[in-house]
């Protein structure tokens, strides 16, 4: 399967769980499982090529000008990680199906999981570092959603926020590092970067790039001092912890270090930073883990410790270290995922994860006991289990690593860490499963169904198999290690064996296990000493840091964002004035090139009306109904101006928009006070007036200035005039520009219009759901309602007019391509026709006869316009290329048929839907409780017998 598909399948599949949510939990999990399985099989189809040592590559140019190409590659390293992500993903999905409770929204969960999975697969298959960064950020975002999945838990929300803050900041640092790296090499393609080791390491920018990239890796992989987010992320549901925090997300940082290993490693900077961070993390986290009482907290710190171990191995810069790191990733993923799932089972059945409240569970949960014990022993490094092999390789590597002088330092610290690593593994077994059975478990622990214990049990198979017969995976590990190392060095082939003879590593292993047992023996006094010691919690510092940031933000925001709209407006006007002054002061002013046209008396009269209406608006705006009339005059004069200055389309649009705007404002005035009180001081009015006059003068000066001059450069308008008929098949150039030349713009605009309408609908719904509803229902109108709300004359008239209006709309629509008209105007006209029905016959009467929901009309419009655009793809043309032909159906005249007409139909529908949805939402607010919806359109209807009764009822819309 193409690599594109492997990455795309989880993203596309993420739509399915939400859709299947209604079909039941098994269907929902099943479809998620199938999606992952398809991607997994797709990955396996590439296995022969990978095992043959090939690198599978595909790519398309996305934004070549930025160096951002959608290039993917699959080598052994990527294959290995993708296999972990998808393979363990399959087990987690099965486990999650049974873990989640009935009240959890499973569709949401699996959608997030698939998004995360796709992003992870994207990271490990990216062959372009910019692309990799995109997927990197996607994992941060999707893991935020997953960690905070239980939105009702404050710990979940805080943990998710902390994880996003830490990994997000690291991601930002990494963007900087990657950009530097790309600048050094001159390409953002990973395969090119990996071939330029000398160039990168000799560059003076190597150190900053390294530090920035490592910040990204360390935050993601929870290395000291950024380790603290991982334990807090344990508030997530256990499947998430098992998936993100054992096998996938925290390994992303490790993956990147391995991916960049050939170009970044081997320098002293790399060695000191990475090895030291890894070693510190490993030892510290192991010690903390021993004293954690929360089962998942213990596992979280043990994960941090193991990640430190892997980081340290990568830091040494030797080929053996790289191989040991890869081998340990494989082993750790298996036993840690199994352990997390076992911890989840205990939590699920015993209703607690507190180790102090557990113990003796081996009698009650034998299957879980066996699984957890084998996995924990592997973690402790007991022979014949896989953890032993890679841990011994780590100890072996430690004996050859010299950090800060003394040769015994690294081996001693590694052994010290291993002692505690063994200790927490033993504590996990001993304090949870061994010991006497207790009577005070919060739940009734028993083994769960196979759906929950099979996934960890499957993971135990490789734990034992690799432990007993390491030669089975040996070649694969070599292959991965060679992919990591690249051309830098030759892999020193050291066979993975259980028995190496009496080497130092063996003694260190023995010390670790014995030491772990001793720690367990003296656990109680140790715990007392630990709890008594003043250990600083990283979370405290993090909280201080965040609250400091919040305070800083407040200091900056308070003076400008104090909730005063007039202040915002004043600040904006000030900036516009400064920008305008700058442009005026720095530009040059040429002499006028155009002559003034003389104005006749009619034009002056129109201007006077406009000025009078505008002036009246300023002085009389307190009477709100009068203000509406005045603004109507302004709109009318503007449309007349458009007609006069050769813009018939604009005039038609303006006048129809004017009608619907006035209706809308009237509906709003129904609720708002009918007048505006005098509040501001005269001085303030004077100040605002001065600001207004200054702004008006500036606008006048600018408009007058360029009206008297020709354009500085040749406008592109002549192109449109010349090609409108030849290329677009229409003589109305404005319409051809809208539906053809600039069709993409128009497409965007109808979407904006649709979104605005949906927003109004959503706001209405929110209002009607909240406390406003009661107030609306019990509202007493401040003006008396007419006795005859729906007069017969108006009802009859609007109904007779309706077909005429539709006819006019149809006519305006069809002639739009060649004469003034088109989808926008036709849509507005038809909307007005329908709104008239609402106004005349009442909301409920009209709504009952309205068969198509307006949401659907908007959607259909956008869809038709979009499909018209897509249609041109089938002819190998770019999006929205139009075509036209002439058709003659006898006995009609020959007429022209353009694909642009379909696009215009989409515009028409979107406009109708948007206008009507907005107005309908407003009128829904007007329905009241004590007024029954009238059954008849007319309150007084001579053809009805029951006239007196309904005539008494007052109200309606």
């Amino acid at each position, binding site marked *: 399967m193409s690599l594109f598909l492997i990455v795309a399948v989880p993203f596309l599949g993420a739509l399915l769980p939400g859709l299947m949510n209604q079909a039941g939990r098994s269907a929902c999990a099943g479809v998620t499982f199938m999606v992952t399985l398809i991607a997994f099989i797709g990955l396996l189809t590439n296995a022969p090529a990978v095992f043959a040592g090939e690198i599978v590559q595909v790519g398309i140019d996305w934004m070549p000008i930025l160096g951002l190409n959608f290039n993917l590659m699959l080598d052994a390293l990527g294959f290995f990680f993708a296999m972990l992500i998808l393979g363990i993903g399959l087990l987690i999905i099965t486990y999650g199906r049974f873990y989640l409770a009935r009240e959890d929204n499973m569709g949401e969960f699996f959608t997030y999981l698939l998004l995360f999975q796709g992003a992870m697969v994207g990271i490990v298959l990216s062959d372009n570092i910019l692309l990799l960064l995109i997927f990197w950020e996607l994992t941060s975002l999707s893991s935020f959603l997953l960690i905070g999945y239980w939105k009702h838990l404050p710990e979940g929300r805080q943990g998710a926020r902390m994880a996003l803050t830490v990994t997000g900041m690291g991601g930002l640092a990494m963007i900087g590092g990657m950009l530097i790296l790309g600048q050094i090499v001159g390409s953002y393609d990973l395969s090119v970067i990996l071939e330029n080791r000398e160039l990168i390491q000799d560059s003076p920018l190597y150190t900053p790039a390294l530090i920035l990239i490592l910040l990204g890796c360390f935050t993601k992989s929870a290395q000291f001092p950024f380790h603290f987010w991982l334990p807090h992320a344990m508030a997530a549901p256990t499947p998430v912890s098992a998936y993100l925090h054992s096998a996938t997300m925290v390994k992303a940082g490790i993956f990147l270090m391995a991916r960049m290993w050939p170009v970044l490693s081997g320098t002293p900077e790399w060695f000191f930073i990475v090895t030291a961070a890894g070693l510190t993390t490993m030892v510290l986290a192991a010690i903390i883990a021993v004293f954690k009482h929360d089962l998942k907290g213990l596992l979280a710190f043990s994960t941090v410790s193991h990640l430190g171990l892997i980081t340290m191995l990568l830091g040494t810069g030797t080929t053996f270290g790289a191989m040991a790191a890869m081998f340990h990733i494989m082993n750790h993923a298996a036993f840690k995922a199994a352990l997390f799932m076992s911890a989840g089972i205990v939590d699920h059945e015993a209703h607690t994860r507190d180790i102090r409240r557990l113990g003796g569970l081996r009698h009650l949960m034998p299957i879980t006991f066996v699984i957890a014990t084998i996995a924990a022993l592997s973690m402790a490094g007991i022979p014949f289990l896989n953890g032993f092999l890679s841990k011994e390789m780590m100890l072996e590597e430690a004996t050859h690593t010299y950090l800060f002088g003394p040769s015994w330092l690294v081996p001693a610290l590694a052994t010290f860490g291993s002692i505690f690593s063994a200790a927490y593994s033993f504590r996990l077994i001993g304090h949870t499963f061994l010991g006497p059975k207790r009577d005070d478990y919060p739940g009734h622990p028993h083994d769960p169904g196979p759906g929950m214990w099979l996934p960890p049990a499957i993971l135990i198979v490789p734990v034992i198999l690799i432990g007993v017969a390491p030669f089975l995976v040996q070649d694969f590990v070599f292959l991965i290690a060679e992919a990591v190392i690249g051309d830098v060095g030759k892999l020193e082939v050291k066979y993975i064996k259980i028995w190496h003879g009496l080497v130092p590593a063996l003694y260190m292993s023995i010390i670790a296990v014995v030491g772990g047992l001793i720690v367990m023996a003296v656990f109680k006094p140790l715990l007392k000493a630990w709890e008594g010691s003043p250990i600083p919690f990283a979370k405290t510092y993090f909280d201080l840091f965040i609250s400091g940031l919040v305070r800083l933000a407040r200091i900056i*925001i308070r003076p400008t964002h104090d909730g005063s709209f007039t202040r915002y407006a004043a600040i904006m006007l000030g900036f516009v004035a400064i920008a305008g002054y700058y442009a005026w002061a720095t530009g040059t002013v040429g002499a006028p090139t155009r002559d003034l046209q003389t104005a006749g008396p009619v034009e002056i009269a129109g201007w006077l009306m*406009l000025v009078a209406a505008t002036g009246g608006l300023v002085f009389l*705006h307190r009477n709100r109904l009068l203000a509406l009339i005045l603004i109507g005059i302004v709109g009318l004069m503007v449309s007349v101006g458009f007609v*006069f200055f050769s813009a018939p*389309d604009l005039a038609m649009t303006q006048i129809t928009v004017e009608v619907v705007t006035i209706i809308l404002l009237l509906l709003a005035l129904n609720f*708002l006070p009918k007048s505006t009180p005098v509040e501001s001081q005269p001085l303030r009015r004077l100040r605002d007036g001065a600001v*207004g006059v200054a702004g*008006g003068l500036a606008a006048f000066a600018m408009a007058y200035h360029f009206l008297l001059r020709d354009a500085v450069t040749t406008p592109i308008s002549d192109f449109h005039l010349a090609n409108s008929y030849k290329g677009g098949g229409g003589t109305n150039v404005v319409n051809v520009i809208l539906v053809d030349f600039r069709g993409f713009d128009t497409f965007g605009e109808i979407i904006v219009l649709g979104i*605005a309408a949906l927003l109004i609908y959503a706001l209405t719904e929110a209002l009607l759901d909240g406390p406003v509803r009661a107030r609306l229902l019990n509202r007493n109108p401040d003006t008396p309602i007419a006795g005859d709300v729906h007069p017969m004359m108006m009802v009859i008239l609007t109904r007779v007019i309706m077909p005429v209006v539709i006819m006019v709309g149809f006519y305006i629509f069809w002639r739009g391509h060649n004469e003034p008209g088109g989808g926008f105007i036709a849509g507005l006209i038809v909307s007005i026709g329908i709104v008239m029905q609402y106004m005349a016959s009442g909301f409920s009467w009209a709504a009952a006869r309205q068969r198509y929901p307006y949401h659907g009309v908007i959607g259909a419009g956008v869809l038709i316009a979009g499909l018209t655009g897509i249609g041109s793809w089938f002819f190998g043309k770019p999006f929205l290329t139009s075509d036209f032909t002439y058709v003659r159906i006898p006995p009609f005249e020959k007429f022209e048929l353009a694909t642009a007409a379909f696009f215009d139909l989409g515009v028409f529908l979107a406009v109708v839907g948007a206008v009507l949805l907005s107005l309908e939402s407003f009128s829904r607010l007007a329905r009241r409780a004590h007024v029954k919806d009238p059954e008849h359109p007319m309150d007084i209807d001579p053809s009805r017998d029951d006239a007196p009764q309904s005539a008494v009822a007052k109200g309606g819309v």
Partner: protein
Amino acid sequence: MEFLVASAIGILTAAGIYLTLRLRTFPVILGISLLTYAVNVFLFASGRLLVGGPPILRDGVEVYTDPLPQALVLTAIVISFGMTAVVVMIGLGAFLGANDDHVDDSDAEAPLVDEEEDMA
């Protein structure tokens, strides 16, 4: 003629700015509408003024007005309806929710973030 159009733009802008700086939602909405007219006419006028030359292709006609600003303004007019409707809805929602149609939030001490959700 140019003077008339330019002064109309100026007057609409001045009135629009003044009304936008009022304290209640309704005059602010009116002010924004006036500013919208001013901006639309201004954009339209950037094609320069021409009487009697509509952008409809005809045989024998030599002078056409600039069609491009017209197309841009046409969609701007429709979008401005959408914008006005949203602003009116927001203003209406605020009034119905708090029985107050002031645009200025007088309570300057209102917390910027939800304190209860703070990390602390």
